[in-house]
C-alpha cells in the first residue's frame, strides 16, 4: 500500500475515533477493579461534566445526534431524583471534607432545584425538570405530554406532572443539606422552598396539582380520594419535615389533622404489600424508607414512633432477604441501620457489596416516538445514566461510618 494512502487511512481512523470518544464532554470511565474512592471521583466528574443542567442533574443524558454538547439534553422525568441524590452526596461530602469547593457544588445543586421552581412562574415545585432551548427537542416525546414554555424565564421549557416520589426526594435531600452543608443564607432559602412546595400541597388538600388545575398522575395524598397507603406516609413525612424546618404552625396543624381526623398514622401501617408476592414494590419501599427516616427523626410521640417502627418492621420482612445489589437497596439497609441500630450492614456479604459498588456505564437506547401525522420516528442514541445514587451511597456511607475511606 502506498505510504500516502496509508497515512490518509490512519488519519481517517483517528478522526473517527476522536469523533466517537468526544461524544460527551467527559468520556473517562473508571475500570471495574479501580478502588472505590477512585470510581467515585471519576463518576463525580462525569456527573458534573455530562449531566449538569444549571445545577440540576439529568437522570439520562442523551447524546445529541450531531455530536453537540447541549445542556439539558436528556430525559427529565426523574431529574429531581438524581439531583436530590447529588445534593445528599455533596452535603455528606462537605460534612467530611469541609472543602469549600464541595459546599459550592452543594449550593449550586440546591440553586438548580430552586430554578426548577422559578421556571414555572408559580410558587411550589411543580416542575420535574427544565432546559433552555430555542425549540422543543425530540426527547420531550419520550414521556408524557406535559412540557410547557416558561412564562417567567423566556426560552426555557419545563416538564410538569410532578409526583410523590419527587416530593420525597426533595424533603429528604433538602433536610440533609440543611443539616450538613447549608449556611444561614441557604438555610433561609431551604425553609422558603419547603414552605412554598409543601404549603401548596396542603392548601390543595394534599394533592400535587398541575398549573391547569388537574391532579397530577402521581400526586395524590388527598384524604377525600382513594389513594395509595404509601402516600399517606409520604404526606405525614412531608408536613413533619416542613414543620421541622420552617417552624410554621400550619404544618403542625396539618400533621395533627391527618392523624386525628383521617387516621393516616393507621393507614401508613399497610404502606407495603406483602402478599401476593408479585405485588411487592421494592421501588416504592425506597420512597417509604426515606419518608420513615425523615419522620422518625423528628417525631417525639412514643405511640407514633411505635407505629412508624411497625411499618418499618413490616417492610423488613421482605427486605431482610432481598438481593443486596441495587443502589436503592444499599441505601435502604443503611437507613434501616440508622433507624434501628441493628447493624444489618455488618454482614460480610453486605460489606462485599458495599466495596464493589459502581456507577453506570454508557449505554444505547432506541426511542419510538409518536408523531402528529400518525407515523413513528425511531431514534437510536447513546446515553449516560446518572450515577448519583452510587455517589450518594458512597458519601452517605462515609459520613455515617458504613464505608471505609481506604476502600
Amino acid at each position: 500500500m502506498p505510504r500516502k494512502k496509508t497515512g490518509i487511512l490512519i488519519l481517517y481512523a483517528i478522526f473517527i475515533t476522536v469523533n466517537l470518544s468526544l461524544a460527551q464532554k467527559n468520556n473517562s470511565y473508571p475500570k471495574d477493579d479501580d478502588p472505590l474512592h477512585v470510581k467515585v471521583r471519576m463518576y463525580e466528574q462525569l456527573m458534573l461534566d455530562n449531566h449538569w443542567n444549571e445545577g440540576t442533574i439529568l437522570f439520562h443524558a442523551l447524546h445529541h445526534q450531531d455530536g453537540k454538547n447541549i445542556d439539558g439534553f436528556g430525559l427529565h422525568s426523574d431529574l429531581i431524583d438524581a439531583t436530590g441524590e447529588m445534593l445528599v452526596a455533596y452535603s455528606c461530602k462537605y460534612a467530611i471534607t469541609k472543602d469549600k469547593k464541595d459546599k459550592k457544588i452543594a449550593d449550586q445543586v440546591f440553586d438548580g432545584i430552586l430554578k426548577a421552581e422559578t421556571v414555572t412562574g408559580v410558587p411550589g415545585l411543580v416542575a420535574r425538570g427544565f432546559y433552555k432551548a430555542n425549540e422543543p427537542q425530540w426527547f420531550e416525546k419520550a414521556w408524557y405530554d406535559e412540557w410547557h414554555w416558561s412564562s417567567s424565564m423566556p426560552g426555557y421549557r419545563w416538564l410538569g406532572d410532578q409526583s410523590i416520589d419527587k416530593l420525597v426526594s426533595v424533603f429528604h435531600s433538602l433536610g440533609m443539606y440543611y443539616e450538613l452543608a447549608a449556611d444561614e443564607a441557604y438555610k433561609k432559602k431551604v425553609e422558603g422552598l419547603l414552605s412554598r412546595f409543601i404549603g401548596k400541597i396542603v392548601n390543595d388538600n394534599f394533592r400535587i396539582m398541575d398549573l391547569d388545575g388537574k391532579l397530577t398522575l402521581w400526586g395524590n395524598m388527598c384524604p377525600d380520594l382513594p389513594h395509595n397507603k404509601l402516600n399517606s406516609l409520604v404526606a405525614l413525612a412531608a408536613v413533619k419535615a416542613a414543620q421541622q424546618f420552617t417552624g410554621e404552625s400550619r404544618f403542625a396543624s396539618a400533621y395533627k389533622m391527618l392523624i386525628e381526623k383521617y387516621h393516616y398514622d393507621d393507614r401508613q401501617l399497610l404502606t407495603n404489600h406483602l402478599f401476593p408476592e408479585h405485588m411487592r414494590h421494592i421501588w416504592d419501599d425506597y420512597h417509604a424508607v426515606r419518608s420513615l427516616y425523615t419522620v422518625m427523626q423528628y417525631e417525639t410521640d412514643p405511640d407514633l414512633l411505635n407505629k412508624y417502627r411497625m411499618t418499618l418492621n413490616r417492610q423488613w420482612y421482605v427486605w431482610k432477604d432481598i438481593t443486596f445489589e441495587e443502589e436503592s437497596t444499599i441505601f435502604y439497609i443503611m437507613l434501616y441501620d440508622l433507624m434501628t441500630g441493628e447493624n444489618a450492614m455488618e454482614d460480610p456479604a453486605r460489606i462485599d457489596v458495599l466495596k464493589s459498588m459502581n456507577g453506570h456505564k454508557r449505554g444505547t437506547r432506541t426511542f419510538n416516538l409518536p408523531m402528529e401525522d400518525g407515523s413513528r420516528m425511531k431514534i437510536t442514541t447513546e446515553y449516560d445514566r446518572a450515577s448519583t445514587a452510587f455517589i450518594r451511597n458512597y458519601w452517605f456511607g462515609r459520613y455515617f461510618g458504613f464505608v471505609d475511606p481506604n476502600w
Partner: protein
Amino acid sequence: MKNWKRDFGLFLSVSLVAMVFISANDPSTDNKVSPPEGMVYVPAGPFIMGSDIDDPDSSPQHIAETGAYFIDKYEVSNAEYASFDSEYTYPEGAGERAAKVNWHQATAYAKSIGKRLPTEKEWEKAARGTDGRMLPWGDFYDDSFVIYSRNNTRGQSIAKPASPYGCFDMAGSVWEWTADWYQQYPGNTHDMEQYGEKYKVIRGGSTFNNFACYTTFHRYYVHPVDTRAYPIGMRLVKDIE
C-alpha cells in the same frame, strides 16, 4: 302542620323520581335483551355524572342520560387488536389488554367489527351505574381489586368486582379511549385551554397511576395520535338495533 305537609310532599316527589330512576335503570326490568358474547347490556335512562370532589373538570355533579347500548365486559386484548393491525406489536402476553393504540386506530378497529368507541356518558354510566358510586364496585377502595404494578404497568387484568352492569377492569388496567373531545361539562366554570377539539377524553386510569385516576368520574385528555407514553386501550360499544 304546614311544615308536615311540605315535608310529605317533598318525600312523595323524591320517592316518585327515585322509582322512575330505579325502574329505568334496573337491568332486571329489561331482561329480554340478550347481549352479544363478551358484552353486557346497559339500559336507557338517567344517571349521576361527574363529581364535586375530583378535579375541577369533572364538576359539577349532574344528571346525564344515555340510550340503551351494549358494552364490552373487558378491554380489547393484544391478540384481538393484532388480528386487525398486522403491524401491531406488544411486549406483554396476547391475552393482556392492548395498551399502545391511538384514537384513530381504536376507531378503525371498532368499525371493522361493527362496534364503536363509547361516549364519555356511556363509559361513565357503564362504570358507576345509577347510584353515583365513586368506583365500579362501590364507594370504597380495596387494594386487592386493582393491580398496582410497577413490574407490568400496562394492561394487566384482574377481573375483580364488576361494575353494576357487569364490566370488569374499568378501574386500572389501561386507560380507555372515549369517542368524545375534551369539552367543558354543562355548568362547569373552570376554564381550561385544553378544552375544544384537540384532545380526546380517556377514562379509567392505568395500573401505575394514582388511585384517583381509577374513579368512575375522573377525566384525562390526550392527543388522538400523539399518545406519548400513556398506556391507552379501549372497550367498545355496540348499538342496539
